[in-house]
Structures are given as C-alpha cells and as structure tokens.
C-alpha cells in the first residue's frame, strides 16, 4: 500500500537534510570584520531622524545620523558637522561654520541649504515634544549666510540650545525616502532590513571623522528573551546589550560582560492628583516603606545605582548624591506617617507596569510585597505597552506605575521639565510653586555654575516633596564576544559601534 512507502521516502529526505545542516560553520566573521548584534526589539518605527520615538530605534540609528554637534561618550558636546560655533554676547545668535569635505551616504556634498531644510522639516514633523517646543518657541529663524555658514537666531536665551542642536539630525535637502531608506552622514550607512529579522549597516568609507573599525554590522531581532539567551549560548551573535542579571548569569566564557548604566531613572511614579497620594505624608510613607537595596538585590543581584531624585549619575554635575538616602528604609516611620495622614490600617494601591519591560514588572512585584509589610495592600497589574502609553502616560488613569524616564538630549530639562506643574508631560501631576520658580529661573540664566546649583536645588525639592519614589539607574549589561573591543558606554541611550572592532 502506498502509505509506508511515503513515510520511508520522507525519513530518507530528513536524514539527507540533517547531514547537509551539520557541517560546522567556520568563523569567517572575525576575518571579514563583520559582527552580529542581538537586539530585543525590532526597529518598529519609521527610520526618519525626526520620528525616532522608541529608544531601541534611537540607540541604533545614532550610528547613521549626526547633528551640527554630537554628544561624546563622557557626556560633553563636541563639534560634528559644524566645525566651529560663535555665540553672540546676548546668547541669541549662533553662527555655525560647516566642516569642509563632508558628504552624505548618497554621495551628495553637505551644504548650509541642507541644514536649513533639515531644521524646517524637523520643526514640522518631529514627534519629540521637547525639540518641537524649542524649534517653534525658542528659535526665531534658521538661515544660510553662505554655502558653509548657518545662522540660528533665538527669541530668548537658552543655555541648553547646543544640546538641542545636537539632536536635530542633518539630512540631504528634499530627500523623501527617510522613512524606509535613511541617508545621513554618520560612520555607518544603512544597507537593508527585513522586518522582524535583521537590519544591516555597512561602514561609510568616506566618513569625515575617524572611520568605523568594522566593515559591516547586522542587528538580529530576538523578541523572546529565551531565544536571545539561546543565541548567546550557541554563539550565533557576537554582542547583545541591555541584558538582565538573570540572562548574564552562567554565560559561557566565550563572552566578556561589560557593566554600565541604562541612563534612566526607574521609579515608583505616583499620581499626585489622586487621593491618598495627593497627601505628601502618604508619599513619604511609601518612600520610607520601600527598601531599594533589597529590591536591587532581588531583581539584579544588587547591581545598579541608587538615586534620590529625578536625575541619574551619568549626568555628572547635575546629579546630587546626597539625596540618595533621604528616605532610609524605616517601616515604623512609614506606619506613623500613614496614621498621621489618616490611614492607620493602610489603603489599596494598584501598581501598573508595562508588560514588555520585565525589569519594571519584577521591581513592581518586589515593591508590592514591601508595601504590604506596612499595611498598604498593593497589587501589580501589567499593561501592554500601547495601552500604557495611551491610558497611563498620556491618559493619567493610574495610582502608581513603575517605569523608567531617560533623556533624549543631554539637558537637565530633559529630566526635570516634566515636573513643572503646567508641563504637558507632567504624568505625575506634581505641582510646587517653589519648584516652578527654580526651574524658570535656571532656564533664563546663561551662567552655567549658577544654573547647575538651581537645578540641584530643584532636585532637592522633588526629593523632599516626594513627587515620586525615585529608585535607581538600572545596571546595563553588555555581553561582547571575547576579542571584540572598543565598546564604550554613553550617558545617553545610544549604542555607538564606530569604536568597536576585532582585536588583531
């Protein structure tokens, strides 16, 4: 009868395929200067420089796009497409002279007209509210004095303007395929992509600065944590960033693990509009009840850096370490504050965490247990990312949520503006006249030392008023195949691969 014959044929086919697949794949990558980088989320957004909302896309596209200035790995701003800048005494007129010999990935030479077009397109289409308010509110005009000089005039002084200049990426004027085939001036140029599979960059050989060490980088997408770990164990990928404590434990010695910070402030953000969280004593009670050290030990083997306010250490001068232990864990003090505020036997609290960020979900579970110890009946509810952004972040329908806020530009405002009472990004609904005054004063000054002092003062108000319970800047583990050197951590959420290469 036909049946057994068919199955015989099939098993023979399977056997043949097994042999075909078994030959050991050699390791050509090292010789050709090619690496594969594992990323946990596809670049699921347009690749246009002005639509880079998801952090995962922003960190990768850092290798393709550049602005007039560029952040260096120590957080300072260095000249990029602009060779020099002259700022008028009243701080309102910035004159940039463009660097000579710079070309875009499609070979077109950089000119002032490209800069003007880029600024106008950015002003009209950017999805980043901060940048948009600067380009529409603060910037008066952007014009090309001549082919290699761009003059930007401001309506009012802004000490941080250079940092914003770094975040407006320059693209060839009139180029309309930015969404799908990006063209920039960076050390790597975009080659190709397959949705949910991989994105391929190649070294841009006529880059104006020091060329990238690698010939080609392929970012491989692994949406499942287990799949990423299996790829690491099997050696399919050479590098992977943002790994959790659990994922690096027991990693084979084929990789070395570098530890940096995620450059964000993870916190239990409280909705100050909602009772009982509108009472500062209740918020302080929560801060006293929470033991960040125990939480960090449980979720990341104790790694990560504690913070006391809405600023993370990599910001350098703005970070005030003295606030870190303002609320030393003290359950008795927490109970007493709760009693004072009229909640002797605690209250119900729902902590919401975005389900696609496991570290935030883990933290929320640990915090819930710690709060139960002082009588606050906390439960954790997970919410899908899209729902978190629209209902919680924008909709503000929450009591407490665990998430992390990062800075898209190297400006103190990027972290502190959201607590100004009338700011459209004020998720927590925190409002303190003293805080608003300090922030307004700092923004208007040009003297950097005085501004830094005002920002630190503002952070102290946030800590003392306990706008939210600020926890940590989480540890960021990067596994790099041994022999691959040069990876450097930035204070921003970026993955600079231009300095990475194989040891010879």
């Amino acid at each position: 009868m036909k049946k057994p014959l068919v199955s015989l044929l099939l098993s023979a086919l399977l056997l043949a395929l097994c042999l075909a697949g078994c030959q050991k794949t050699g390791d050509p990558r090292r010789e050709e200067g090619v690496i594969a980088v594992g990323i946990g989320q596809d670049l699921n957004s347009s690749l246009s420089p002005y639509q880079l909302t998801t952090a995962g896309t922003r960190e990768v596209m850092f290798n393709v796009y550049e602005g007039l200035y560029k952040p260096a790995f120590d957080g300072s701003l260095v000249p990029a497409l602009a060779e020099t800048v002259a700022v008028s005494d009243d701080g309102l007129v910035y004159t940039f002279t463009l660097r000579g010999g710079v070309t875009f990935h499609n070979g077109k030479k950089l000119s002032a007209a490209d800069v003007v077009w880029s600024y106008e397109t950015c002003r009209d289409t950017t999805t980043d509210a901060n940048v948009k308010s600067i380009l529409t509110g603060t910037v008066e005009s952007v014009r090309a004095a001549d082919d290699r000089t761009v003059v930007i005039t401001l309506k009012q002084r802004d000490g941080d303007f250079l940092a914003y200049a770094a975040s407006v990426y320059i693209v060839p004027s009139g180029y309309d395929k930015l969404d799908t085939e990006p063209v920039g001036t960076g050390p790597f140029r975009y080659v190709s992509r397959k949705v949910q599979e991989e994105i391929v960059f190649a070294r841009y050989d006529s880059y104006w600065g020091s060329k990238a060490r690698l010939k080609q980088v392929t970012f491989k997408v692994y949406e499942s944590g287990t799949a990423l770990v299996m790829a690491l164990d099997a050696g399919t990928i050479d590098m992977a960033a943002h790994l959790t404590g659990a994922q690096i434990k027991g990693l084979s010695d084929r990789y070395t693990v570098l530890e940096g910070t995620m450059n964000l402030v993870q916190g239990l953000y409280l909705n100050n509009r909602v009772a009982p969280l509108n009472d500062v004593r209740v918020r302080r009670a929560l801060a006293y009840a929470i033991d960040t050290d125990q939480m960090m030990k449980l979720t990341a083997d104790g790694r990560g850096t504690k913070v006391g306010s809405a600023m993370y250490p990599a910001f350098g001068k703005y970070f005030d370490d003295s606030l870190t232990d303002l609320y030393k864990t003290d359950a008795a003090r927490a109970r007493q504050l709760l009693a004072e505020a009229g909640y002797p036997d605690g209250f119900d609290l729902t902590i919401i965490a975005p389900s696609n960020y496991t570290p935030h979900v883990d933290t929320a579970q640990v915090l819930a247990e710690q709060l139960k110890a002082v009588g606050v009946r906390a439960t954790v509810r997970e919410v899908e990312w899209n729902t978190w952004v629209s209902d919680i972040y924008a909709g503000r329908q929450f009591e407490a949520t665990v998430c992390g806020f990062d800075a898209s530009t190297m400006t103190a405002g990027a972290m502190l503006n959201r607590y100004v009472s009338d700011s459209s990004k004020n998720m927590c609904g925190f409002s303190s006249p003293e805080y608003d005054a300090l922030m307004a004063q700092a923004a208007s000054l040009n003297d950097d030392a005085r501004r830094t002092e005002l920002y630190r003062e503002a952070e102290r108000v946030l800590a003392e008023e306990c706008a939210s319970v600020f926890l940590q800047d989480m540890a960021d583990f990067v596994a790099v195949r041994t022999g691959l050197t040069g990876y450097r951590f930035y204070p921003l959420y970026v993955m600079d691969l231009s300095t990475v290469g194989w040891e010879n």
Partner: protein
Amino acid sequence: MRYIGKKLLTLLATLLAVSFLSYAAFEMIGDPVATILGTNATPEAAAQLRADMGLDRPLPLRYGEWLWHFMGGDMGTSYIYRLPVREMIGEKLAVTLIMTLMAVILTVAVSVPAGAWLARREGRPVDKVFTVLNQILMAVPPFFVAVLLTVVFGLLLRVFTPGRFVPYTESWPLFLFYMIFPALSVALPRIAMTTKMLRASALEELGRDYILTAYSRGHSRRSALKAHALKNAMLPVVTFLAANAAEMLAGGIVIEQLFSVPGIGRLLLSSIGTRDIPVVEAIVLILAVWVMLIHLIGDILGQILDPRVRL
C-alpha cells in the same frame, strides 16, 4: 454543485464579517498614535497625528476605503514601518505556510503508519505503552516541547545552532533543515492525537462486517487492514487534520518566537501590539481564508471518501 456554491457564499460572508470585526476592534483597543509618539506624546501632537493619518474619520468610511483598496490588490502601507504591507507579508506568509505544511506532512507520515501498526497490535503491551505515551505527548504544552527540543538538539547534541534562521532565498536545504524543529514542535501534540484517533477508527473498521468477509476470503489481519480498513479509517482523520491545520497556524505564533522564525504569526502579534491596522487586517484576512478553505476541503474530502456523510 449548488452545495459548493452555497458553501462559498457563506465563506465570503464570514470573511467579510471577520475583516469588519477585526477592523472595528481597533476602535476599542486604540490606534497606533500612542505607539508612534511614545512617551513624547502630548494631547495636541496626538490629535494632530490622528488627523494626518485620517484616523479621526468615521469607522465605516475608513473600513470601506480599506476594503476598496484591498479588493484592488493594494494592501496599503504599514502605519508603523511605513513599508508596503504586501512586501512585508509575502515572504513571512510563505515561511509560516511551509512550516505548517511540514508539520502536516510530519503528522501524516508518522501517525498513519504508527496508528495502523498499533491497531494491528491492539491489546499487546507495546500498544498500552504507546497509548500512555500518546496521552503524555498530548498533555505537553507546545512551547515546552520547543524549549526541550532546542536544549536537546541545539545545545547538547549541536545538531542545529539555535536562534539561527536561513531564509529559503539563500539556500533551500538549509532552510528546510532549520524548519524541521519548529515544525516538529508544532506537529508533536498533533501526531499524538492523530495516531490515537487513527488507531481507534482503524480498530472500529476492523470490527466491521466487510472485514470479516475479507478474512473469509483469506486476507490476513495485516493485508485486510491495508487493503480496506485504512482507507475508510482515514475519513475521521482527514476532517480532524483539516480542523487542526487551522489550529496549527495559531499555535505557531509561540513556536515562531522561540525559534526566531520570521513567520506571519509573529508579525501579527507585534502588529496588534503596535496597532498597525493595515498589517493586521491583511494577515487576519489571509488567515481567515486559510482556515475557511481548509474546512471546505475537509468537508469536500469527507464527502468524496464517504458519500453517506450528508452535510
């Protein structure tokens, strides 16, 4: 013929209903604006973007427009990736279809001989052992099977490197090789079920009187089974496989994630997450057509194999 006509008509009507319901679903679970803007969302920016994308227009209008384009073959552009939907879906659909097909072939190739073999040995110890094994195999969640397969064949025996996927555009043999394990993870619980079912229906057929007459004409139990019983025993299996092929597709999403296979299931899951309506609509419709066609083929096959079955 009228019967087929009627069936096709209901199929079309249900397809339309499915496409409209999934389109309307997005009224409830939100639109892509939140994903696009992310934490930079401000109420004004959100309203502006919604207007630019035409999402503020009434639902029936948008659905009608989408359907009209879709009929014309234009699947529209992804709200999130800004790529033409047809381009994104093409290869992924092929990958998932091939994986499901391999799973079906594996199921038939293994369970038909196994079922028949067990039917012949009914009651013997080996039959008891396999029946228990079958029950256990049916009880194991598919993604658990996937992880175990990867650990055993991938990490321990190093037969394949986990996390690697070779597109068929690159090399067919390697592609098929890497697809064996995901297909096996999808197929394993089905193999157990189909074997059990085939064994049961084969036994039933063996009990029928036309087999007794076959014995009297000198057939041994083995040849009787081969000549007559198996063909009739195949009927329930065919309809079972038809229903299962559709289910295998849905089960595949989890497997695709674990084996990082860029299939249609993964894209559907992530597109729903980012509320990428055009992509979801196209996939939902294609999957619905697939499910319906399979049921239709199952019905027709059922009728050909056994005219007594009146549907």
